[in-house]
């Protein structure tokens, strides 16, 4: 359709559809896992994702909250990424590791949730509220 330059209103120059990228946002994945933790513990523990927006992108902190302990909070891990979802940067020992795809991120995430440290924290918190 030709642009009508006599119109006082600027024509809509955007394409007909604006689809989100097919990948799932890391924050969405983390929020789904936060909900799964609550279901799995009968809501004794609540997962939460705190997001901060900075000059270089987004930082998400995955937290475990214990409502029965006056909302005691444990920061399990922190991930960050730029405007693009991937690579996701995660702490790996003292340095930083880059996860280039959703599959790599999911694999790392599963490892975090299954780690001895995580299971120890969750076990300790569940004992507190048993």
């Amino acid at each position: 359709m030709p642009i009508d330059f006599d119109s006082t209103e600027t024509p809509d120059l955007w394409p007909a559809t604006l689809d989100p990228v097919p990948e799932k946002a890391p924050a969405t994945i983390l929020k789904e896992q936060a909900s799964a933790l609550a279901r799995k513990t009968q809501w004794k523990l609540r997962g939460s994702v705190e997001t901060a927006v900075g000059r270089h992108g987004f930082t998400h902190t995955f937290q475990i909250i214990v409502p029965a302990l006056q909302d005691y909070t444990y920061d399990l891990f922190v991930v960050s990424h730029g405007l693009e979802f991937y690579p996701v940067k995660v702490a790996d020992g003292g340095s930083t590791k880059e996860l280039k795809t959703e599959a790599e991120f999911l694999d790392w995430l599963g490892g975090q949730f299954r780690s001895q440290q995580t299971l120890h924290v969750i076990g300790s918190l569940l004992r507190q509220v048993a």
Partner: protein
Amino acid sequence: MLTFLFWNLHGKPLVDLVADAVEEHDADIVILAEWGRDKYQFVDAMNRTGHPGFLPAPILAKNLFIAARFDPDFCMPRHDSSRFSIHSWNLPARQEITVVATHLPGKMYWSDNDQMLECTHLAKTIRHWEERAGHTRTIMIGDFNMNPFEPGMVGAIGLNATMARRVAERGHRTVQAERYPFFYNPMWNLFGDAAGDTCGTYYYDSPGHVSYFWNVFDQVLLRPELLPFFHPGHARVLTEIKQTKLIKGDGRPDETTGSDHLPLIARLSL
């Protein structure tokens, strides 16, 4: 009097030396970073001194060891992470205080910007828990891996820690219409060679153009509400414990007897 001992042990097996420091300075709350031993070894050693009764505090911060000479039921954990622990002590006949213990990432892996942003997050988290507690009787102690003059320490949006007690007593400062509560940082008084045998708590001779040589990475910060209970001299860097010298002849930490960091004592007359 409530006495805090903080020490980054650099992974050294300094169990007996920590216990000696506890006894010599009558410490009530002991916070260790990079302790590198089973925590019950430390607790057992502390309880062999003339000041027994130590138990680990009920916190889950994996990079910090905290023990206190109080019933753990007096301690309410608020927020733990790999870098900090926020908890409250509600001791009999005393007002509740909030303790923030920290060991922030070092400069080997984190840029100045990373450290600044971490302090912004930490400051926001502390303010959240202060609002929940309904008071600002907060003491923060640990290895910040930053000097007192760095942006993360002094920036309003960071920890907003000033060297001047009278400035801190104003309570807060406003930047771009946002109010930020002050911390008072008494560690400025311990910078330089006028303060004693050392010029800080950690020595690093950087090969680059800029080197401070001495750093005060180990610090204690106090909110103005705690200042009536804190006096000059209540924060000290230890250079010896009983008869053991922790520094060499040139004043640098002696790693053959101690750690690469010097221990810190802070007292509140609560």
